[in-house]
């Protein structure tokens, strides 16, 4: 359907929107340890200025952290423990299978914009941002960028993503989990039309205890199909065909099935502590980022 493939490219983020995003930062419900010290407090005791606790001095401790005031009063050696400030790993898994190259407004563009916004927020807050595109498996990778000045790389990566292949979340989740042992925020943006099922892929991600966010993006054509007559429907991903005679009953059945599918995904996520967010591409994406993500606690 040619018309639904149009308007697939466009500016990912506008300057105004970026200004708004400057105010936000990503919040993880779990505070994760990073490799580098970042701007956020870790559960690990570290070298930040925020005091956490005392403990007895043992040989070998850094003498710089002895609390001399306590020693003066009690003549016992105590080590001051501080909260470690850590950087946050923010990973975005962006579906670039052919089914994302669809819709008016375009599903893929919408997903890339969401990914860019999340990445920007992370970069601004010196989080470690990794972007992955996936289809049959992980396809493209922009790993470990930090700092606002690398935003151009993010834009470049997202703009260069090609739509191809069928989406296979199971393979993707396995690869990502193996390659990405550090905890952090993982955002999966997809339509979740997985012929092999999304459960296995999500299970791989859940196994690493990531702070997992699932964003399901659907175009209006998928939610309210405007098909009529005797049709041979071809799957753009795997060329699978389905012959249908579109009738009122069939359309109703489709919508019921779609609603049930989304409900099942949401149910699956909620049961496992995964934040699920459904959006249609007709919803302005800045609204998603500025209000929906905030409501879900992803940004503040």
């Amino acid at each position, binding site marked *: *359907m040619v018309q639904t493939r149009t308007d697939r490219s466009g500016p990912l983020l506008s300057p105004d929107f970026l200004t708004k995003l400057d105010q936000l930062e990503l919040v993880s419900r779990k505070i994760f340890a990073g490799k580098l010290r970042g701007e956020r407090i870790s559960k690990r005791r570290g070298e930040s200025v925020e005091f956490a606790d005392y403990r007895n001095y043992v040989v070998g401790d850094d003498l710089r952290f002895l609390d001399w005031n306590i020693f003066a009063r009690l003549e016992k050696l105590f080590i001051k423990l501080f909260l470690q400030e850590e950087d946050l790993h923010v990973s975005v898994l962006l579906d670039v299978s*052919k*089914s*994302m190259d*669809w*819709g008016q407004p375009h*599903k893929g563009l919408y997903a890339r914009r969401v990914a860019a916004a999340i990445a920007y927020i992370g970069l601004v807050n010196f989080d470690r941002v990794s972007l992955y595109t996936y289809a049959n498996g992980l396809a493209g990778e922009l790993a470990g960028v930090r700092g606002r000045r690398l935003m151009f790389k993010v834009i470049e990566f997202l703009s260069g993503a090609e739509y191809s292949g069928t989406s296979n979340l199971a393979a993707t989740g396995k690869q990502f989990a193996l390659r990405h042992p550090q905890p952090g925020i993982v955002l999966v943006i997809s*339509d979740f*039309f*997985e*012929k092999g099922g999304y459960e296995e892929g999500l299970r791989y991600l859940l196994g690493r205890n990531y702070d997992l966010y699932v964003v399901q993006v659907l*175009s209006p054509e*998928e939610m309210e*199909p405007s*098909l*009529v*007559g*005797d*049709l*041979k*429907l*071809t*799957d*753009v*991903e795997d060329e*699978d*065909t*389905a*012959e*249908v*005679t*579109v*009738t*009122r009953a*069939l*359309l109703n*059945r*489709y919508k019921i*099935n*779609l609603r049930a*599918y989304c409900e099942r995904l949401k149910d699956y996520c909620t049961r496992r502590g995964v934040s699920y967010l459904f959006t249609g591409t007709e919803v302005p994406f800045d609204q998603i980022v500025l209000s929906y993500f905030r409501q879900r606690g992803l940004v503040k």
Partner: protein
Amino acid sequence: MTFLSPMTIALAAGLTVPPLIALYFLKLKRVVRPVPSTLLWRRAIEDLRVNAPFQRLRSSLLLWLQLAVLVLAALALGQPMLETAQKLEDTVILLIDQSASMGVTEPDGQTRLEKAKELAVRQIDGMSDGSRAMVIAFGDRATVQASFDTDKAALKRKIASIEQTQAPTRLGEAVSLAEAYTQISLMGAETGGDDRPPGATAAPATVFLFTDGRIEDVTRVSLQAFDASRIRVTRLGERSDNVGIVAMDARRNPERPELLEVAATIENFSGQPRTIDAALYVAGRNVDIQSVTLAAAPHSAETSAGDRRPAVAAEERPDSAEPLESAATAQPVAVAAFAPMEYEGGGVVEVMLRVDDALSADDRAWAIVDEPRHVRVLLVSKHPWLLRSALSAMPLTLLTVTPEVYESMPEDRLREGERSAYDLVMFDRHSTSRLPPGNYFFWGSVPRLAGVSAGDAIRSEVIVNWDETHPILRHTAVETLSVFEWQRLRLPPEATAIIEGESSPVLAYLPGGGSQFLISAFALAVEDDEGRLRFNTDWTANVDFVVFLYNTVQYLTSNVGTRSRRSVTPGEAVTLPVPPRTEAVTVTRPDGSEDRAAAAEAGLFHYARTQRVGAYRVTPAVPGAEAFAVNLFNRTESNIRPTDAVTLGGERIEAKAESLALNRPAWRYFLLAGLGFLLLEWIVYNRRVFV
């Protein structure tokens, strides 16, 4: 409900229903549309199961509707028939009456013939496939419109081409034709000579007779090949209101030939008493009108067809027991006698009834009258006084000459054109060879012609035989005739002896070469040896002699040999004399159209296209034969009341009314139902597809 072509149903259903069901097995040719994922579609259509190459046949309303449409169409093709009150006949002969009475316009605006044709066409429609039909139209003669054929369209065309005539109804020829064709067809079937499948039994034909029952020769029709039980008579028509001229005569007064006397016999056939005006037209001018009062036709007159009552005067009617006064005014038959009028011209005389009735063909009658003419008789005699005194009592112009004068007369005085200048030349004991074509009476002498001669005198014989039916001897008593002597005659074979002696004719008639000769072997008076005149017979003293002379003049001058009949009935052939060396003759018909036909040999012209009543004019023509009239003059035909039964071959066959239960084709209803189902199918389809 019967189907005329059950094989067609099987064929049509067999050809269409399996493909339709196969189409439901087969996948549709669908429009290819890409979608992001067929995941949900697949789940949605799982119930519909349309994705297999051949799906299991499911009960679909559309399929049932389409099957219904196909089955109804196939049934319509099978030519369903309603009201099959009669058997579907195998071999059918349609006899359609096209006589004058079939031209009656019934109250519904159709003539009886149109109705008959319509019913015949419906009969053809009602035939099963493979049935054969034959169409014969009959009026005064029968015409095979179509011999046995199975092609319904051709048969219908032939039926449509049957034309209305004004001829009387004669069934005999039609029945003979039908029987002959049936015999031929049966023989053909036995020998496999026709197109019927081998082994097919030749079923006896069923005859459908479409008529109003007024058949003239119904009593003379004999059935040989047909069983009366296989004859179906369809009675057509209801009207009976007809008044017609059943006879007419126009003649000149014998005493005063300038006086024209016209009379017409008019009969009322309707159930209502009528008073009508009969108008007389002479040479196109209305000269007289007579009012005639006619009683209603008695119901007893409603006898079977073929009862041909003579057109008689009112007094002879069987119910004349009534007082004479009322009988004269209250009979269904009356004679309109017009006042004698002086009319010197010749031409057409017409009587027209000023009446609005069902049949118009008998409302007018025509007669041809000649110009008044005195018979011119030339008497060639030495002693003419005897014959002259007898002839002078007659209305004729008599010229008397002696034989010497006759022989010396210039040729142009004897001839007028090709013929003799005299209507009759009478020779008294004078033989001559100056005989231009004409009429001659020889007394005691013979014409000098080849094969005619007079021998010795016969004295001792008697008259032994005579033809008392001959017009010349009408009202004469030959037995009282005694002749003293006569000559022995030697005559050619074509001569007819009217009075015969023992060994030789006494009076003979000899036609030939456009002439007529009446030869009397005896003379009225003979001269004895002393030259004195003596009577040879006592006949001259008898009144029979005058009667005999009158008959002779009438007979010889009426030119019966060459003169045509001036009035014929429709369909009858006419023979007219035409001027010599005429090659083609133009006949102007009553409707103004012209027929051109070649003249036959011997100055005669035959014409048979006399189906319509009226005056026909002929050019070129000999005087007196310029026109002839065709008149219906048929009481059977004028009596248009349809009969309830027809007796054929001694068996009475009930005539069914025209609303006879014919096979009514019902394919329209099937097609209509099919269309209804098609509409329903369309609605259902649209409701399912458009959302």
